[in-house]
């Protein structure tokens, strides 16, 4: 499974936020059409790593980035790269749902509209994306209502539908279930499992049980360095590093 060309290859990635060296010489591969979990203790740079995969990290003040992130052999940090295009192909599901200040329909239609999809296909796109996010049945009769009227769990599914509407290749999830109640969280997890047949998914989580449930491939990060990476079964059952074993058995972290 992992011998095929990786969808994303991270090469010597270094990130400094202010003077702090947050990511140190990261080298990792993200396999295609799998769920890759980035695990590690709080503050180890998981989120920074995820956000550097679609160049959201550079929005912060005083950020310095060196190294490469190869997306199908194209460096997304190449100076000639169109950032908007990178973020269109590599979507993000944030930790907390942030519906855009518009209706449910317009939230999903936002991406296709700015990318110039024809008006005729829009209703169909919105419908299929809401269906894929398993939200359609709950909102079909109030598509024009403000998105903020939805519950947190529904909002997160709306954000997922919104992300799917721009037809990304890769979906980044930043602890996307941590702000939700257990039932909504499990709903999102199930959705991610069904979506991995069509999308490459990268998931940041501090919840090892969630990583065990979802991940095919795991990257273990510690203080900004990759300690170990590999297929989930190997890493969880038979970690190569004692350090990883200690973390998995919750002796450290």
């Amino acid at each position, binding site marked *: 499974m992992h011998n095929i060309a990786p969808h994303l290859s991270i090469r010597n990635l270094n990130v400094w936020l202010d003077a702090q060296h947050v990511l140190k010489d990261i080298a990792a591969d993200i396999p295609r059409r799998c769920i890759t979990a980035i695990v590690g203790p709080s503050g180890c740079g998981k989120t920074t790593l995820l956000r550097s995969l*679609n160049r*959201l990290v550079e*929005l912060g*003040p005083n950020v310095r980035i060196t190294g490469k992130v190869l997306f199908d052999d194209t460096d997304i940090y190449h100076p000639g790269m169109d950032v*908007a*295009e990178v*973020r*269109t*192909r590599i*979507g*993000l599901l*944030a930790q*907390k749902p*942030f*519906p*855009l*200040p*518009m209706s449910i329909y317009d939230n999903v239609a*936002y*991406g296709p509209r*700015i*990318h110039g999809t024809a008006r005729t296909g829009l209703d169909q796109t919105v419908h299929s994306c809401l269906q894929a996010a398993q939200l359609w049945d709950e909102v079909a009769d109030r598509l024009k209502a*403000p998105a*903020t009227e939805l519950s947190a769990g529904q909002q997160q599914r709306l*954000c997922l539908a*919104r*992300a799917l509407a*721009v037809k990304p290749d890769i979906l980044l999830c930043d602890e996307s279930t941590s702000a939700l109640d257990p039932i909504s969280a499990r709903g999102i997890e199930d959705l991610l499992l069904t979506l991995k047949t069509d999308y490459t998914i990268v998931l940041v989580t501090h919840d090892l049980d969630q990583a065990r449930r979802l991940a095919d491939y795991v990257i273990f990060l510690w203080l900004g360095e990759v300690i170990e990476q590999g297929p989930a079964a190997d890493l969880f059952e038979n970690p190569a590093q004692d350090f990883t074993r200690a973390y998995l058995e919750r002796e450290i972290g």
Partner: protein
Amino acid sequence: MQETYKPTSVLDSFVTVGRSSRRSVPWRWRQWKDVFADHSVRLITTAVSLLALVMGIALLIRAWPILSSRPLGELLFSSTWQPVKGYFGFWPFIMSSILVTLLAMLLAVPCATFSAIYLAEYNHSTRAFFKPVIDMLASIPSVVYGLWGVLFVVPFVRDVAGKWIGETLGAVLPFLANDNPTGYGLLAGGIVLAIMVFPIIVSVTEEVLRSVPQNMREASLALGATHWETTKFVVLRHALPGVIAANVLGFSRAFGETLAVMMVVGNVVQVPHSLFDAAYPLPALIANNYGEMMSIPMYDAALMGAALVLLAVVLVFNVGAQLVLSRLTGRQ
């Protein structure tokens, strides 16, 4: 019965114990202070708010002689202002106020909005320089703006804008015709006023834009939207009620501004028909004439009536803006 309460955690039992023990302690000095603070802040706020009402009533009483002796329609919409003969028509002043304010807002709002967008969304390193400068502009006394208007804006209107526009477009469009050789008029007033309200609108709008959560921007950017699309469709939309409030503040300020406008607007009693005509806004009328010619019958009441009209317009505009705002926030 001893088992009625089972603490489920250490914290839970701590909270309960804390509450019950506190209840039994008699009131102490700090609780009296709390009650005192409670009442005093309410009292002060109420007193200050009542002041608006008191001012309105006082103006109404003083303006009553003229309000009761002439039909309201004639007062508001008559263009004849001949105090000696007893004709008091506010229409030229009302129109002057509205036109000079509209012109100022037309000039200031786009510039101010774009400047605020630049400061809040585009450049975080020069903000440290621009923000204090703009805040300082907001606190310059209006007489300074007025002087600057007399020294620079009026000559500019007279020698450059008036001449050029009056001779070219003015021949075709009546509202751009220039038969006022002085430079003192609607355009000069509008420009000075625009420059005055610009920093106020920028300052408030910028704060409002900055209060939009960063996550909201990232949500849009992560969908492949450009910086400008994000600003236009997400940041401005989310901040719209605040942006409107900023402009209402600017409007109220502009409508009531007296000194700077008075110095450059010409102060001729007429309904201005062209951008270059002289005008005579309500605040200028009151400030120029109160205390003079007070022996003319009804003159005092007429000026009070003008102040009342000024108050009413600002009030109506603010209430209207509130209604718009509440509809907007209700929709989001």
